[in-house]
């Protein structure tokens, strides 16, 4: 069978694949927006001067990181809705429950990894900075917000960008619970036309292309804002 480029450049299959790419990008974007604040909150919990909060955050991070994303998504799709009250469940099932489960799973998963990066960023700031801020009368939250986080985020951006890259690749797993993202559409084209080479070539090129853009962003950031020694 010849490689038919026109198949993925125009027509029905092109539209399917392109809409899949759009859904994948949207999944990445929404998850990123939700996961970042959550990750900062978890990182702060891990460092806060309150022991039970530390343990709770540590338990969260370890639980998430030691279970594969696929099991997370299966849980959020099949398991979690069962726990909800009936009226919310009905509302969920009438909407796009696949996408909601995927965003929930991906957000909690990504936030755990990002929180570790943010935490090590914060710990990269010399402890004297905290002590000095506390000594002149800032509380824990004010110290974090005004002194530590602005410095820490600068160190943290490169690992966060590479977590975004992981997130982009992880969205492919959402196909398992039937989210119509890129991998799902590629499979659909394959079943419909038996044109697996073309469909997978499109998907691979898209994943690679976006990955490359993200990698370039990281390199650009590194060039523009090299890590300063505090």
């Amino acid at each position: 069978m010849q490689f038919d480029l026109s198949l993925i450049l125009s027509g029905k299959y092109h539209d399917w694949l392109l809409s899949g790419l759009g859904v994948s990008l949207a999944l990445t974007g929404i998850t990123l927006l939700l996961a970042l604040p959550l990750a900062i909150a978890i990182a702060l919990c891990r460092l806060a001067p309150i022991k039970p909060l530390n343990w709770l955050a540590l338990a969260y991070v370890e639980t998430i990181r030691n279970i594969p994303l696929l099991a997370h998504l299966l849980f959020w799709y099949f398991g979690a809705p069962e726990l909800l009250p009936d009226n919310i469940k009905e509302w969920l099932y009438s909407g796009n429950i696949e996408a909601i489960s995927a965003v929930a799973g991906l957000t909690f998963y990504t936030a755990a990894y990002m929180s570790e990066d943010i935490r090590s960023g914060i710990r990269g700031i010399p402890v004297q900075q905290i002590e000095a801020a506390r000594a002149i009368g800032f509380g824990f939250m004010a110290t974090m917000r005004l002194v530590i986080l602005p410095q820490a985020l600068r160190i943290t951006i490169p690992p966060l960008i590479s977590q975004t890259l992981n997130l982009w690749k992880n969205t492919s797993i959402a196909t398992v619970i039937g989210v119509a993202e890129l991998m799902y559409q590629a499979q659909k084209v394959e079943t419909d036309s038996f044109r697996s080479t073309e469909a997978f070539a499109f998907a691979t090129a898209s994943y690679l292309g976006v990955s490359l853009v993200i990698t370039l962003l990281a390199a650009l950031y590194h060039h523009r804002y090299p890590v300063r020694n505090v």
Partner: protein
Amino acid sequence: MLDLIHDYWLYFLIGQYPNGPFGGLGLTLVLATSGLLLSLPLGLIFGIARISPFRIIRWPITALVYLVRGTPLLMVIFWAYFFLPSITGHKTDQITTMLTALVIFDGVYLAEIVRAGILGLPKGQLECARSLGLGYFEAMRFIILPQALRSMLPSLVNQFISTIKETSLGYIIGLTEVSFIASQINTQVLTKSTQVYFILGLTYFVLCFSLSRFAYWLEKALQRTRSQKAAA
């Protein structure tokens, strides 16, 4: 939950074996172990090629590393699933497909671990070995690799954890590993989805968490012997 475990524990652990295909947690472990073991030599070769002084070796492997690291594992699995049969000429079973995808994927990630392990050594080690008259390969084999592999051990355990988690993707091509079996149980029981997937999560957690503690301990132990040596 207890009756769920009571009814299905054997199915969960080994699938339908011996009356059907081997599966469950057993298959997950077998796949992860053989995947890592088979990808080790590949990772070693790729890793050395990545820092080879010869461009003709370094560039293609670097390109391959970037190619695979920019694509999701699922994509690699699909390529293997659809194209292994046309390359080998006969039907490939799911285990072979998954193993092939895992070996390629892990090989590339291991290459980066090997590379970091080698680059982490003082540069003088290679220079010293070369000036003593050892060839490049001899220097690698007798001087560099034995030291690099030692410091790589904790990363290898972590890679094993990743591999265990990666095997869950076999679910998509119908491989009867533990996630797939859990879904089968879920379809049979129907009413206890939350519990079934909770047990699945717990299983992965116990497995991976204890391994990650082991990696941590290993790292500390290696550090200790190193500082003892430095002191002596």
